[in-house]
């Protein structure tokens, strides 16, 4: 039985150089058997969406600690949609106040993970979510 591997893009939008979280999550997701592509730093919304489309990923995870999430996250969502990747599982994390988490989760983001979240919880959550999606698509998981 072949198992479809979950493909993930971890993106660092904006000018913020704090990549400890992004790299840690990328490594942990890889340990969980996912295929992970890390964009590197200082990416524009278009660059991230372009990479997601080219790599044909199932999940886009964004990390931001600069406070620009309310500007950049919706832009990335729009850029993904315009490239036909609007259905990607879109998640994020960083220094994001609770009100903003609520707003983003009501606006196309599946889940935002705050500081102190276990990375294994992130991995498990993505696995569960993708399992449901793959099953709907009729793929073997």
């Amino acid at each position, binding site marked *: 039985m072949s198992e479809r591997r979950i493909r993930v893009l971890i993106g660092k939008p*904006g*000018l*913020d*150089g*704090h*990549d*400890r979280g992004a*790299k*840690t999550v*990328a*490594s*942990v997701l*890889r340990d969980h058997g996912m295929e992970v592509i*890390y964009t*590197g*730093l*200082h990416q*524009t919304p278009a660059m991230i969406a372009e990479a997601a489309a080219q790599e044909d990923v199932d999940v886009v995870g964004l990390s931001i600690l*600069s*406070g*620009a*999430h*309310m*500007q*950049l996250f919706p*832009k990335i969502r729009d850029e993904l949609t315009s490239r036909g990747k609007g259905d990607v599982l879109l998640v994020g994390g960083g*220094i994001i*106040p*609770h*009100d903003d988490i609520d707003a983003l989760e009501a606006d196309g983001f599946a889940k935002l993970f*705050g*500081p*102190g979240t*276990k*990375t*294994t919880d992130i991995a498990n959550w993505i696995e569960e979510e993708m399992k449901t999606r793959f099953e709907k698509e009729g793929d073997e998981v």
Partner: protein
Amino acid sequence: MSTVEKTSSDPRALWEEALRGAKLRDVDFTTLSGEELKVIYTAEDASFSERDDLGMPGQFPYTRGVHPTMYRGRLWTMRQFAGFGSAAQTNERFKFLLANGQTGLSVAFDFPTLMGHDSDEEISLGEVGQVGVAISSLADMETLFEGIPMGEVSTSMTINGPAPILLAFYIAAAERQGVPPEKIRGTVQNDILKEYQAQHAWLVAPEPALRMITDMMAYCSDHAPQWNTISISGYHIREAGSTAAQELAFTLANGMEYVRRGIAAGLDVDEFAPRLSFFFDSHLDFFEEICKFRAARRIWARKMRDEFGAKNPKSWMVRFHTQTAGVSLTAQQPENNIVRTAYQALAAVLGGTQSLHTNSMDETLSLPTEKAVKIALRTQQILAEETGVANVIDPLAGSYFVEEQTDRLEEQAEAYFKEIEERGGVVPSIESGFFQSEIHRSALKYQRAVEAGTKRVVGVNSYVEEGEGQPEIDIHRIDPSVESDQHERLAALRGSRDSAAVESALAAVREACRGDANLQERFVAAAHASCTLGEIAQVLREEFGEFKEPKIL
């Protein structure tokens, strides 16, 4: 020990016997950096010599402190890092801090400024004024210091890639206040090597960046002798996930690289080395941190005197700023962060810091509120005035444990210096991703330990409060109008300045990039001509090329 009878009166033997049968708590007794520790340290562990390893404060190798009087002469400078929104808003916060007894200023810039972009560039979208103040021109710098006498206050500016340009704005703003460069006091972080390793706010590739630094060192030794040209920083290396030993080793390795570059550029080591200062993290592991500070002083003194031939004792001294560990703060039960910060501040003071920033409890959620900042500042004031820790110099010296761990950190740092050298030096080790991989590995190891529960974090994997909702503390938000106001200010500036003067100042910068004229002088002239940060930085990017980060995963 088998020869010792149970009836022995030897205390050590008796203790070991008692320990053998004793039940110990089933927890991880390693340091925060994962170092194994003995149950107890004795004279057998600490082989320090009073003369060679400790000395007296103010004397080589400065293990006990850089000043003969330390805090009896003068307390550490309480320097809270601040900056957000517009120059005018930060100017108000500075005045608030000065009015509350703060003794020096420390400027936090926003990401566009840190990366050498103007507020109105497309890439700056959403970032203007968010994590610091937006400074795009001399006019912004003048607003930032309006009503603050630049000849009297000492200012630290946390800026790296574009540091020479921001220093030029500062010099020009001081001149507009009638203060000559000779009179300004302060520091630019300007530590580009750790940017490639950890913090990632660079402007151009390492070699031209190092040339700009040596140009600044030369300029300041001629014109601004009270200005500290580099604050060699371990803070960001540590926050990115390194161990204490890595922070110590990489920081000092970077410091030695700057010294080599200065000497290679024909500068006298004793001309510029006294203007180098350091910046460390004070993390959670109390004793390990104190030992790190003590080891830093001793290593640097030995290197500067014995390897680089510095003759001036000021060249041998590690004078350092400390910030408590932002990464140790938790979003859960945020008031607990006040306590964490207080212990970290105590470690910094027992380690002999020259200045200190204490983090605010709310920084995992947003920039700090005024109330949170005040508590953080009061934490230092309580430490200084109520606890008595400032009464005696280096009070932990001679502790077997402290001396052994100071030696241990020095040995670990030496092993890293050797490895870096074998890898061709600091710049090649940056280009190959060596530092970045080491830091990432340590960060991952720690994260796994927290998730496995072997390293405890109160509120996160220990004493978790079930059903914890949103923390009931205020959030400091940046008004989005800051960004549009900055656009208007810049548009007005571009419309009103002498464009011929701008063009010729930028051309002079370009010419200096291609030749060997001192760039710092050209930056100051460009600042006076109202060239913007982004315009000057663009010339540098075009002439010097940009840095591509090596992929490490």
